[in-house]
């Protein structure tokens, strides 16, 4: 099975999966931030914020991810000239593409994170929020100290789903030239059509190794953290 040793020596397959992991983790963090803000907007008492929140979710969630990522490169970078890396550095193309991909992935998945958190908010009984208001907490403090801590614990399982989807969706970044796992897979398939299924199998296995533990972890977390009512 020389193709397996080629995976490590010639094609830097591990480096590619490392890029996939970085892409996933950075995008997950950013998506969690944006998504929380959007979710708060969607449950806020201000109507303008609520409609802005649902507009964001509906527009972004219904746009194909490939389109979002390609727009980040062709639209933001090529047409509008927005650079996320120093254009004179010797690795500007790679850095810029990577950061644009993180931006695209997090903006896209923020919509799903927001919906996951909103579903968590819905698990918190109305009485909790009413009690918080009754002791005089304003809206943001009600969220911060009463609703959101319980909402996140209820939203662990759907957030895990989003993280798994994000891991696999990060392969779309290859369309703008980020050398993550699927890009290296395409190179290997081009060069070794004789063992195309082995190549495919290696990368499929790689993704299973990345996503399966995440799924198990989030399932057990969701059981452990669930608010017993």
């Amino acid at each position, binding site marked *: 099975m020389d193709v397996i040793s080629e995976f490590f020596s010639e094609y830097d397959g591990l480096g590619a999966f490392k890029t996939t992991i970085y892409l996933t983790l950075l995008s997950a963090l950013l998506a969690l931030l944006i998504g929380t803000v959007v979710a708060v907007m969607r449950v806020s008492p201000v109507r303008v914020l609520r409609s802005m929140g649902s507009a964001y979710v509906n527009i972004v969630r219904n746009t194909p991810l490939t389109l979002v990522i390609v727009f980040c490169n062709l639209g933001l970078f090529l047409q509008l000239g927005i650079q996320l890396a120093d254009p004179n550095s010797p690795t500007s193309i790679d850095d810029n593409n990577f950061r644009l991909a993180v931006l695209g992935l997090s903006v896209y998945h923020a919509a799903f994170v927001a919906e996951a958190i909103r579903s968590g908010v819905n698990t918190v009984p109305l009485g909790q929020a009413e009690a918080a208001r009754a002791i005089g907490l304003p809206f943001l403090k009600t969220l911060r100290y009463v609703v959101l801590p319980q909402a996140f614990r209820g939203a662990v399982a759907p957030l895990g789903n989003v993280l798994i989807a994000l891991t696999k969706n990060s392969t779309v970044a*290859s*369309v703008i030239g980020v050398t993550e796992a699927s890009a290296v897979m395409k190179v290997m398939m081009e060069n070794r059509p004789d063992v195309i299924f082995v190549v495919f199998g290696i990368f499929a296995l790689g993704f299973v190794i990345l996503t399966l533990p995440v799924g198990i972890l989030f399932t057990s977390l969701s059981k452990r953290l669930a608010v017993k009512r």
Partner: protein
Amino acid sequence: MRQRIIAALGITVLAATGLTACGDETDAGGGTAGGDKLVVGIKYDQPGLGLKEGSNYTGMDVDVAKYVAKELGYEEGNVEFKESPSAQRESLLGNGQVKMIFATYSITDTRKEKVSFAGPYLVAGQDLLVKADNGDITGPEALNGKKLCSVTGSTSAQKVKDQFAKTVQLQEYDTYSKCVEALSSGAIDAVTTDNTILAGFAAQSANEGKFKVVGKTFSTERYGVGLKKGDTETCTKVNDALKKMVDSGEWQKAFDKNLGTAGLKLDPATNPPKTFDACA
């Protein structure tokens, strides 16, 4: 209720088998008797070589395929074109979904382990596409510190980096048209792949006069006709047809029509090809 579910399942199964039956009808076909269909794999997205515009197919690959099909005894109406993206070419041939492939398919030893090749019907080479007013990129050596574009999965850009210009930066997109877009906006300095493909893009009406092919090839790509492994019978026939096409001048006509307008100059020692590989 249960009966209904069983009936629904049954219909699904029937529908599925019906679909596969349809698939059999468009099978690549073998004989040359009238009414038989020939399914040919081409690229749909390469101007000048294989391009689908509406229901029309144009390009050098398409014209050569049509000529060969005619020589093999298929009427023009019985030739069906099917898209064959690079990664799927071997399996499309292997499972018989297409009979032959004309899709900038370079003959290489690793590919020969999976498929057989007739041809070559054209010998291209890797080259660079730059803006028409660019004077400082004269060849792959001049790319140090520049930005070079190619498609994901192709080895052409990596080759430039390894062999000619160590400090070149590579941008990869999923299609060449995005590379050309980036080149026209100035975000990258050059696009690299086979000179035939580059010339096809340069000659598109939207890009006319904007780009030029540098014209200094640094590899040899021998475009073959992909066939199912071991199909020596078809291979011999295709080679005969190609020879006839070259001898009769039809090859030159097809070339002038599709790629000649782009000012592409192929190596006259190897084009049009006069000798073909032995069928094995």
